[in-house]
Structure formats: structure tokens, C-alpha cells
């Protein structure tokens, strides 16, 4: 009996026009994304900046950010179901909805960037169980199914006693899912920049940091639209979590690079990553904007309003920094040529064996990526109006 959720939830009834404005902007972005996808499918990838050297481009960066954020966003629900923190309970449903919509948005970008998106059915019916990519397809679909079951047991009072078990299962599932996403890169034997088991835990840390940042956005947005504020304890707790997760990401990134610097065979790749033409993305994007800035913002004290604003800024830059890191992992690794002959220099080759390739994304890829993000947020905001996921301000405050 004590497990029954006594918080009150409702469908989102926004008290301000900013909700509708946001919806309108998102619709425009989704339309642009759809147009980009149509063009890429119709004309082929020749209109994009991707080629035979840079095979995975900006859409993949966006997709991976979304998928990784989805896994981390579920943390809000795990806090209460798995770790027993009752004060996080009101936001559990919001977290699950956000997680599911972020994942679907990421998958949409991924599928639309396929060379043959019309063959999605083939992907769903032909599995190669030696492929981590294939496993990921199963894990992603399972995530959505588990999300639905999770919401169901949370929303049906008679099933509330199963919330802890389902929550634990969801926690385990998303850990495996994010490990799988990181392993897509970690399993690549042919690429020096990626061939590392460290990428799996790095992605777990990234998921937690970007996911928490995404949560902050949705929690404060729903609070704002209900003309209330997030409680002080909530702001403090989210801020601390975000700080620790950002530090965790930094830890794994540092260990990855330091280890690579130590190994002779990775020298070329590391020199390119840390001092090459694309290194500003790492140093400015990830280190400065994505790590130092949120740490500084989150350590600052001040009035409650200031702390809330700092938290939101910190969340924004964390997401940007996470994207920058994913950019260097995905695209940086492809820019460096694969070294077929380690003890020789390549004088001439027509297939990019010689020098580094600079990736020049086109508007179509950017459109597709942003369209996916917009689709995820749009779905989330619409779902919030359909079913009672949003906690009422009184429940939040208590």
C-alpha cells in the first residue's frame, strides 16, 4: 500500500503562449528536416558532405547525441524507482517520456540517413548477432517497450508495486544499451582512434551528463508553463548530479587521450586529435564550453533565481560540449587516414590514404540533424498534453 504513488499528475495545460510558440518553431524545424531527408534520399548522399572517407557525418553526431541523451534522461526515473529517492518521484513519468521521445528522434535521424531507408523492414527482419549494430537495434526497440511498461506501472495505482522491479530492469537495459552504443565505435579494429574498450564507459558517462542536462530543460520548462518554479532542493540536486557527470566524462576522455599518447602506434592519431585542424572542436567545444564552463557555472552560489539560471546555462553548454566530443569521436576518427603501412609514408593515392580529410557538412545534413532534435522535443511536448505525465506544482513542492 505504501508503494502507491500519492503525487498528483495532470496533462500539461500551459499557462503561457511560449508553449505554442515553441511548438510552432519546432514544427518548422521538423518540416525543414523532412525536406532535407527527402532530398538526401532522392538525390543520394552526393549532396551531402559525406563521402567515401567521411562515411558518417553530422546526422550521426546528432543521432548519437539524441540516443545517448535518451539513455541518460531515464535517470530521473531511476532516481526514485531504483535509488529510492522519494523527492524525485514526481518527475519520474516526465523522465521516461523524455527518454522515449529522444530515442525515437535519434532513430529517425539514423534511419533517414541510411543509404536505403526504404529497407528498414530488412533491418528489422535480418539480424546478424555478431554485429553490435544489430544488437543495438534490438536494444533500442526494447527500450521503447520497457518505457511503455514503465509508464504503465507508474500510472496504474494497482501496479505501482511493480515500479521498483520494472525500474531496475529499465536501468539495467539502458546501461547495456549505452554500452552497446559506445561499443559500435569501440569494436572497430581498423581505426586507431576508436579501437578502445574505454569508449563504452565514456558513453555511459556522456549519457548521464547529457541526459541530466536534457532533464533540466524539460523540468524547468514544464514548471514555467505551469507558472511555478522548480524547488530549491531540486535545483541544487540536479546541479550536483550534472557536475559529477561532467567530471566523469572528463575523466574518461582524459584517460583515453593520455593512454593513446603513451602508445607509439597511436601517436599520429593523437597528434591530429589534439593539435590538428579539427582540434578546436575538442579544446574549445568540449573542454572549454562543455566541461570548464558548466563546472564554473555550477559551483557558483547566489540567489535561487541565479542558481536556476546557472543550471539551465550549464545544461545547455553540457549538451553542446557532449556533441563536440561526439563530433571528435565520430568525425575526427574518420578524418585521420587508416594506416595500412605503418612503416611507410604514402606518397600518392586516390582514395584518401595520404592526407587528412576535412569534413565539410552541407545544409542538408544540418537540416536532418536539427529536424531530428526538433521532432524529439515536439513529440515530447505533444505527449505531455495527451496524458497525465506532468506533476502538479503542489506535488513538486512537497
Amino acid at each position: 500500500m505504501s508503494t502507491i504513488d500519492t503525487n498528483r499528475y495532470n496533462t500539461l495545460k500551459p499557462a503561457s503562449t511560449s508553449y505554442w510558440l515553441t511548438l510552432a518553431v519546432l514544427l518548422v524545424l521538423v518540416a525543414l528536416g523532412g525536406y532535407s531527408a527527402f532530398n538526401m534520399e532522392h538525390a543520394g548522399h552526393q549532396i551531402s558532405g559525406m563521402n567515401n572517407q567521411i562515411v558518417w557525418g553530422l546526422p550521426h553526431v546528432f543521432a548519437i547525441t539524441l540516443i545517448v541523451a535518451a539513455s541518460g534522461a531515464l535517470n530521473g526515473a531511476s532516481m526514485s524507482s531504483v535509488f529510492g529517492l522519494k523527492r524525485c518521484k514526481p518527475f519520474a513519468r516526465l523522465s521516461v517520456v523524455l527518454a522515449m521521445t529522444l530515442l525515437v528522434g535519434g532513430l529517425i535521424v539514423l534511419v533517414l540517413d541510411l543509404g536505403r531507408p526504404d529497407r528498414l523492414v530488412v533491418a528489422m527482419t535480418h539480424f546478424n548477432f555478431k554485429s553490435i549494430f544489430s544488437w543495438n537495434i534490438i536494444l533500442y526497440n526494447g527500450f521503447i517497450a520497457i518505457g511503455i511498461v514503465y509508464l504503465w506501472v507508474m500510472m496504474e495505482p494497482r501496479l505501482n508495486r511493480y515500479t521498483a522491479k520494472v525500474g531496475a530492469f529499465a536501468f539495467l537495459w539502458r546501461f547495456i544499451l549505452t554500452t552497446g552504443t559506445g561499443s559500435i565505435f569501440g569494436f572497430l579494429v581498423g581505426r586507431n582512434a576508436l579501437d578502445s574498450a574505454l569508449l563504452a564507459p565514456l558513453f555511459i558517462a556522456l549519457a548521464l551528463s547529457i541526459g541530466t542536462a536534457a532533464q533540466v530543460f524539460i523540468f524547468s520548462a514544464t514548471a514555467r508553463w505551469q507558472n511555478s518554479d522548480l524547488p530549491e532542493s531540486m535545483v541544487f540536486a540536479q546541479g550536483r548530479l550534472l557536475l559529477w557527470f561532467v567530471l566523469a566524462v572528463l575523466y574518461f576522455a582524459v584517460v583515453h587521450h593520455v593512454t593513446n599518447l603513451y602508445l607509439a602506434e597511436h601517436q599520429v592519431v593523437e597528434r591530429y586529435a589534439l593539435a590538428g585542424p579539427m582540434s578546436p572542436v575538442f579544446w574549445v567545444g568540449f573542454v572549454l564550453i562543455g566541461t570548464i564552463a558548466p563546472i564554473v557555472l555550477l559551483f557558483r552560489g547566489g540567489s535561487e533565481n541565479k542558481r536556476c539560471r546557472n543550471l539551465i546555462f550549464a545544461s545547455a553548454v553540457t549538451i553542446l560540449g557532449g556533441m563536440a566530443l561526439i563530433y571528435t569521436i565520430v568525425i575526427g576518427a574518420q578524418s585521420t587516414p587508416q594506416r595500412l603501412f605503418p612503416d611507410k609514408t604514402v606518397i600518392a593515392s586516390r582514395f584518401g590514404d595520404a592526407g587528412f580529410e576535412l569534413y565539410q557538412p552541407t545544409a542538408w545534413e544540418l537540416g536532418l540533424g536539427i529536424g531530428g532534435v526538433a521532432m524529439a522535443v515536439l513529440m515530447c511536448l505533444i505527449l505531455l498534453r495527451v496524458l497525465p505525465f506532468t506533476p502538479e506544482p503542489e506535488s513538486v513542492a512537497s
Partner: protein
Amino acid sequence: MPSNSDHFNSGQARRRFLKQLGLLGTAAVTSSYTLLEVRKANAAASPAVTNTKRWGLLIATDKCSSGCDDCVRGCNEEHGLTSSGRDEIDAQWIRKIDLQDKLSGRKSSLPVMCQHCESAPCVDVCPTGASFKRADGVVLVNSHTCIGCRYCMMACPYKARSFIHETLTNQLAVAPRGKGTVESCTLCVHRIDAEEDQQPACAVACSDAGHGAILFGDLNDAGSEISQKIAAQGATQIRSDLELNTGVRYTGI
């Protein structure tokens, strides 16, 4: 006591069941009839390939010169690989690489194509199984099931695979290829399957031009020319540290 309507209903149900059974039976018979027809018509077809043979290439790089790309031209013309105008999105089933040794400064040149590895990373990572290894060791892309995810291109250590970035219209019948799928050297299976003693286009082009750098043969047959040459001179794999056991071997690098 069953009423008249109950009798009527159970009769209806029985009729429905028999009708469905009949349809199911007809479908089963029809589909097996189709397969029987196929087997009858295909009696003259060649047998399936087995792992008795393992096809491979031996490339003598000392016979390759930096300016020569006969093998590339031979492959391109055999398969109808035309240029889109942009190097970076063109198909590259085989390419020439010019090298210089870091220590000695010695220059060399060699062609690189799909190495047809025994433990091919591209086969491991393909989510649909479109990238697969045939029983006779040839690594291929089944373009019917390829979804164009390009994961195999990320995974290949030899950068052997190309993605088709634009709509194609002038394909040759021996080399079906289309936008949105991945492709690579097929060891000219359309030639080597067809008859005995057929060679891949690159080997033919090279020997016709008088260089004789590319030798094709059965690695499983100790008496074949390629096996004898490898036994006599030794041969190396590119990136042998990866232990992929490639079917393409080189001398002179």
C-alpha cells in the same frame, strides 16, 4: 440441450475451418509446386560453391610501377565504374598506392583492393548480414539486403569499400550496383564462377599488359601456381598484426 441456432453456429464454424484448411493446403501445394518448377528448370545450373577452394591473389609489388594503373582500368571497365566527377565519392574497387619507406627511402607501388579476409571485420559488423563471406572465401555485399548504413566502411581496416552516392543508370549486367548501397571488389565472381580457368579483370589486365604482377588462384590447392609461389617466396598480408588471414597476399612490401 443444444438449440437449432447452436447447431447452425457449430456447422458454420466447421465449414469455416474446412474452408481455411483447404486454402492453406492449396497455398502449400502451390508454393511447393513453384519450388519444384524452379528446381526442375534450374537442373542445368552450376552447383553451389564450397569451401574446397579458397580463392586468393598474390601481388608481386616489385612488378608494379608508380605510373601504372592497368589493374584499376581493367576493373573499372569490367564493371562499368564511371566517374561522378568527384574523386571523393567515386567507386574505388581497387586503387594504386605509392609508398616510400621511412627508413630507407625506397619507393614502391601496389594495388589495394578488398583483402577478402577470413575473419573479415566488415562481415562481423554488418547489421543485416548483407556483408558476407562465401564458402570459397570471397567476401561480398548482398546488395539486396544492404541498407546502406556504412558500418562496414567504418570497420574495414583497408578502406576497401565504397558507397554509391548518386543514382546510376548505365550499369552492366555483370555488375549490378545502385545508389545507397555499399560495394567492393568481388574477385570477379561473375567470371570465376562461370567457367574454369577464368581470372579477375585486374589480373587479366595486368598480364595482358605484360606486367604479370597479379596472380589469381586457389590457396587451398598446394599444387596451384599461387600456392607454390607463396611457399617458395613467402608473402605478407597488409596489417598482418590484425590477424585477419587475408586472401590477398603481397611480396615485396
